């Protein structure tokens, strides 16, 4: 007959060096506490599946916050209730690791309700052990979300009353309603038979993760003689007689035979591929600057109109063209409260030297594509500046006498070209033609970047060209 050697699982440290207490061989838990049982089941399972080396154990606030004294695994101590989120983080960073979130009732079912629900709902490939002892053990016996009706605690000195505190939260039932979790079971620790069942549940929950099956949760009804102010034997009876009535034992969900294991393919692109994937593979193009009359240099441009008129794109195209000619440029869209009411505007600076504020409060060039914009911004234009407006849509004329005015029926021109939506590009051409700021070559290159749909580039080129001729013909002599 083989000799059976009884010893500590290898997944525990031999000596608990991290425990500040003088005795480095004894755990810090109280006599009769259930944590020791569950710790042992976990350590044995880690041994048997030979995964302790790649296990990362997460211990949030509660008596088990010091689980890192014992487990010879990677250890993370986490904030109260946040262990499932921390587990998500490390599991996503290192998917091959075995991540265990070990939580008490206050942690999991009160302050961390959101974290557990959503980690479960995402089907994180982690294992959660939920120690339900119906009390806050660590802080000295206050009410837990799982405290049963009538149970006296330091914060329910007259017993838990549903009228005031509601009913105990049933986690196994709750989590098993979600689609993603693969395995949810509630077990208890009150006698050998049930401890053996608990041990099997712990093993299965860990094995599920080793097999990449998904999210498992085991709820353990566990004794807390200190918190309950009972001796350990009475505590066992209390689980059997009182707790089990409220928290029925059993498998609440098991779809482990039906689900496909996760497959995580690691992809580590090289430098060149990364640039490609980030759309950063662009040629450095540079175009010669045109000879620009002094008054049009360093324009501060405001473009305004209805949403849908391509106001932002027109601004972006101007900035893009400026960039191609190595100017300093900035583009700022209307932002915040300004955005309301269906109007859009943007601010563009094209400057020979560095741009300070990107905000254009007093434009040197105002492009107004609808009447409200013209009325609103006309007074702000710098004296000697330029107003360009769509005379096919705006039925008034600017009243300023100290500025240049270019009235262009851009919408009508766009219609004649066959597409109302290119009116903005007619205007782009017109500004360039009128001020001689950009040549057509630069504008055409701009379209290659600004227009995402390649089949629209041709018609936009026509728009720019038509606008350019119009602008050129209307230059001030």
């Amino acid at each position, binding site marked *: 007959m083989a000799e059976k050697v009884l010893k500590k699982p290898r997944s525990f440290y031999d000596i608990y060096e991290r425990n500040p207490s003088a005795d480095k061989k004894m755990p810090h838990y109280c006599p009769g506490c259930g944590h020791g049982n569950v710790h042992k089941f976990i350590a044995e399972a880690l041994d048997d599946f030979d995964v302790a080396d790649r296990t990362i154990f997460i211990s949030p606030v509660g008596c088990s916050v010091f689980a890192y004294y014992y487990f010879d695994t990677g250890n993370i101590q986490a904030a109260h209730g946040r262990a499932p989120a921390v587990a998500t983080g*490390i599991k996503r960073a290192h998917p091959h690791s075995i991540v265990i979130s070990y939580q008490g009732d206050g942690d999991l079912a009160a302050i961390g309700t959101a974290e557990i629900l959503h980690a479960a709902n995402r089907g994180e490939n982690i294992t959660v052990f939920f120690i339900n002892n119906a009390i806050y053990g660590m802080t000295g016996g206050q009410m837990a979300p799982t405290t049963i009706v009538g149970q006296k605690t330091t914060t329910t000195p007259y017993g838990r009353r549903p009228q005031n505190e509601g009913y105990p939260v049933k986690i196994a039932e709750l989590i098993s309603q979600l689609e993603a979790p693969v395995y949810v079971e509630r077990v208890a620790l009150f006698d050998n038979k049930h401890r053996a069942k608990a041990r099997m549940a712990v093993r299965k929950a860990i094995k599920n993760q080793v097999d990449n099956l998904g999210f498992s949760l085991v709820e353990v009804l566990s004794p807390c003689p200190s918190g309950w102010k009972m001796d350990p034997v009475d505590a066992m009876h209390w689980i059997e007689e009182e707790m089990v009535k409220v928290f029925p034992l059993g498998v609440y969900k098991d779809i482990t035979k039906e689900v496909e294991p996760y497959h995580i393919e690691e992809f580590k692109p090289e430098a060149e591929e990364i*640039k490609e994937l980030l759309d950063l593979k662009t040629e450095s193009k540079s175009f010669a600057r045109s000879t620009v009359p002094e008054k049009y240099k360093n324009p501060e441009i405001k473009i305004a109109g209805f949403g849908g008129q391509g106001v932002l794109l027109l601004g972006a195209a101007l900035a893009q063209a400026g960039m191609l000619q190595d100017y300093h440029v900035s583009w700022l869209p209307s932002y915040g409260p300004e955005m309301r009411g269906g109007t859009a505007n943007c601010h563009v600076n094209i400057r020979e030297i560095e741009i300070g504020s990107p905000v254009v409060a007093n434009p040197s060039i105002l492009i107004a594509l609808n009447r409200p914009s013209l009325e609103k911004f006309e007074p702000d234009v710098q004296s000697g500046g330029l107003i360009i407006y769509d005379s096919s849509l705006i039925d008034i004329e600017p009243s300023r006498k100290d500025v240049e005015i270019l009235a262009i029926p851009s919408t009508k021109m766009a219609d004649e070209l066959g597409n109302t939506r290119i009116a903005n590009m007619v205007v782009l051409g017109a500004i360039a033609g009128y001020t001689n700021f950009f040549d057509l070559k630069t504008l055409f290159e701009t379209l290659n970047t600004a227009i995402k749909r390649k089949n629209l580039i041709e018609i936009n080129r026509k728009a720019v060209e038509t606008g350019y001729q119009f602008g050129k013909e209307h230059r001030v002599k």
Partner: protein
Amino acid sequence: MGKLLVKGNDAIVRGAILAGCRVYFGYPITPASEIAETAAKYLPKVGGTFLQAESEIASINMVYGAASGGVRVMTASSSPGISLKQEGVSYAAGAELPCVIVDVMRGGPGLGNIAPEQSDYNQIVKGGGHGNYKCPVLAPYSAQEMSDFIQLAFDLAEKYRTPVYVLTDGYIGQMMEPVEFGEPKTDFPRFDWALYGDAESKQNLISSIYLEPDELEEHNRKLQRKYAEIEANEVRFEDFMLEDAEIVLMGYGIVSRVLKTVVEKLREEGVKAGLLRPKTLFPFPKKKIAELAQRVKKFLVVEMSNGQMVDDVRLAVNGKCPVEFYGRMGGNVPTMKEVLEHSKKLMEA
């Protein structure tokens, strides 16, 4: 690579990925959502993970988890969301975990509004959560700096094992400017403190618990030494026309852009003005300020807040010259004109 015309919120994500960030956890909030959206677009392409968390608190704790694994990880939010994250940042500071948090500030307190403010200065620069900690804070003022600073943020985070903030506002995020992106970083060191889910790293413990008062005090002293080292090595600022300046304008982020134009205009009118623009808010350019305070007539600090950075300026000036403050709140960006008028009045006084 050529220059690209991109938004600040885009530049910061692509910059982060170039810096080697492959994991992002976040919760949507205006005006920071574009950062999450851009991360959601690009991270899966390069073999990374983007995850929209159930809450700000969950997202910072996911960051805590991934940071424990020694990978480059980030999150982004805006002011009310940052308030929620403070618990997690305190834990990360205590456990000395490198990670990067972007705050695209908006108007407060409470729900406030979504327009740009700079009223998070105190909660970001002074620690923010519980405990004796501070985080390096970088304040970009252009799309280019959004890309550059996020990369620097990861480097600093790892060098000093600390959370690092990039503090910015809706304007810098929304603005498009030409950006020259750097080269991708592809090799990463293995840290002796991190958890990789293997035998070599399993002895490591990520924790902020020190039960014994002496131990916790020693841990705190160690943190303070680290912050002193950061103060000694990592101060960054821009000096714009300070050499002969009589009035020093100070501001960061979008405000400093306005101030640059104000300085130009003041100079045109014969006023000797200069701009001191902190690029790092912690560490703060205290020495430079103290040195200027010896020889200039005045400081004018401009913020989109009730005056938060100005306190640090006053501490550094230490009564050597007057420190004036001009602030706008509620999402109003001070215009060049109003600051110009205010500065002129101050110089006449």
